[in-house]
């Protein structure tokens, strides 16, 4: 990579953005281009293997990890609009594939070059050209894997400060789990509901009218809980806001002002 040539980013879409909210991935691509990168979306991607890995299916996880390493190795960087998917690739693939002599080096190399979107923009690209407006008081939920395994905390906040009209207001316990936890939320729905309820309460208490985060799993959980009667805050992925691409909030129908059932 020469000084003039643009770094090539392979966009790891994440299965949840692919299925539930393509806008998040379109927003990520737009931001990466604005940050001077060329963006490629390898079509042979699906999932990072997290459901298998965290449910104890090491073999399934290893097979998926192997595929991801092969598909994403050609790019200068791999970027995902999700802290937990980035964390799996960065922190867990090397151990998962460590016994495979053909993949050990490759997985370590991929791990070093994989980033969550806001950390890549803020830390690697020093991106300061956010061009977006959103009149709101927003609060930020720190998703667990992103916070504790990728060190994501100040990066999204720093980027959001550049959004015109947006005021950040911290909620209590922003770093406490929302109760999503992948398959946890359907395996132990009672505990999960309780944790999601606590999170919705903290959001409502903060007085913010929008809640933002970097992981769609958590955001679907939080939005679903708020819709079921946990306040009126609207939920968006941070990428949508930064790219100025926010349409209807998560869980809100087209043309719905929010809250309709």
């Amino acid at each position: 990579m020469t000084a003039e040539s643009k770094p090539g980013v392979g966009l790891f879409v994440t299965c949840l953005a692919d299925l539930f909210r393509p806008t998040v991935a379109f927003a990520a691509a737009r931001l990466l281009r604005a940050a001077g990168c060329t963006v490629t979306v390898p079509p042979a991607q699906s999932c990072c293997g997290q459901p298998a890995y965290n449910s104890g299916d090491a073999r399934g996880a290893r097979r998926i990890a192997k595929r991801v390493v092969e598909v994403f190795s050609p790019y200068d960087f791999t970027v995902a609009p999700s802290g937990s998917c980035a964390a799996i690739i960065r922190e867990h693939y090397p151990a998962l594939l460590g016994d495979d002599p053909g993949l050990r080096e490759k997985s370590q190399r991929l791990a070093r070059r994989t980033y969550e979107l806001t950390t890549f923009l803020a830390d690697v690209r020093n991106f300061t050209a956010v061009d977006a407006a959103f009149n709101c008081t927003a609060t930020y939920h720190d998703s667990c894997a992103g916070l504790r395994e990728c060190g994501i905390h100040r990066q999204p906040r720093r980027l959001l400060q550049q959004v015109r009209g947006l005021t950040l207001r911290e909620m209590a316990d922003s770093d406490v789990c929302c109760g999503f936890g992948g398959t946890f939320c359907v395996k132990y729905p009672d505990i999960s509901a309780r944790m999601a309820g606590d999170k919705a309460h903290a959001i409502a208490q903060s007085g913010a009218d929008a809640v933002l985060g970097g992981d769609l799993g958590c955001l679907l959980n939080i939005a679903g809980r708020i819709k079921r009667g946990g306040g009126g805050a609207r939920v968006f992925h941070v990428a949508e806001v930064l790219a100025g691409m926010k349409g209807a909030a998560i869980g809100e129908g087209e043309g719905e002002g929010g809250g309709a059932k």
Partner: protein
Amino acid sequence: MRAAAQNNFPRRVQVALGNETLQRALGRARAGFQDKRRRAVGQVAEFERMRRAAKEIKNHTLTHLDFYLEKFADAVRANGGQVHWARTAGEARDIVVGICGAGGKKIAKGKTMVAEEIELNPALEKAGHEVTETDLGEYIVQLAGEAPSHIIAPAVHKTRGEVLELFARHHGAKKRGGDTAAIVAEARQVLREKFTGADIGITGANFLIAETGASVLVTNEGNGDLCSCLPPVHIVTAAIEKVLPTLEDLALFLRLLGRSATGQEISNYTTLYAGAKREGDADGPREFHLVLLDNGRSAMLGGEFRDMLRCIRCGACLNHCPVYGSIGGHAYDAVYSGPMGAVLTPLSAGLRVARDLPNACTLNGRCREVCPVDIPLPDLLRKHRMREFEQKLGGARGRLALVLWAFFALRPRLYQAAAGALLYLLKKTAGRRGALRKFPLAGGWTQSRDLPVPEGKTFLRRWARGER
């Protein structure tokens, strides 16, 4: 064994979540513990360095555990104490019951989780002894006929009102009401008689010092000291991983323990028991016994759960666990609860009966973040899940879902086709609504939250068609 009831975990969770008194007690405790720890840790700039040093000392000691244990046992004997090795909980029980001798003794007990682990109290009572817990929290759960629900705050699940009621019932007092100070004063009065009249004192140990043979006990009430000095016989029950090489190491661990456990710079009472009373000593027990418990620990040394042996039982992982904070300790139905309990219980009770515990966790990692010896608790819980999957202990439906997911994930074309069909169905059901209250097979999700409706087609399909 209590473990037999493990398969009722979901039921116990429901009970706990529906118990308003418990929820009040948990909410208050959680906030208190977390604030205090945050403040105490914030005061020391080198906390992370201390943590790393502690981890190294523990790892080193575990690598040479046989050496340090022998050294410790020699030192205890040189100090006039007797050392007993117990391979199992049953052996440990028999040893303690044997030391206590003929029935009818009055036994004053300080806090010891090892005694809970070996189910000592029932054995002593069966042998005809009268056992009184002297730690206030332990005393409260003893009166209530319950087990501790937290390793350092045994009665954390009780509100003040419940404690006052218990005391009124057991102490015969008529008065109701009173603040925490009144509770402590009342307990102190009752317990003082127990100390002075005790034949035998039993305590645990937070650390064992190989260099000097000292057993170290940390308390905030000083009750441990009264258990050890006043009765003529003192028995310490401790697990083998408690050993530390030197007194200098101890200084580091005391600083970490106090701050991590209760947010104190150091606990109120730290006592080093050196052994039996010698000629010229002002006080001390006539006999000093040390019961060293293995109970599966040496087997952990060579395995994938070795890191767990660093645990100093500070309780920080419980205090910061959102699952523990929601359901409390009794829902785990085991001696150890919270994240550390979810790692330990399947090892002692078997993964088959305790399989819910490692699964009932979001792997959010807060426990590891606060653990003073950096135990990778989420990784250890995940290891349990891997064993469970290998041994096919989980439900068939969950397994099928995983296998199907992996199958599709590895076949992007098929995956996209299946996803397209599913999204079409969801969209069709939802119409113009943005979220669904119900959807087939999504009951676990929709029971307590709406299901946000997907936008429509998958991103990959739209991108392939040139949309940007």
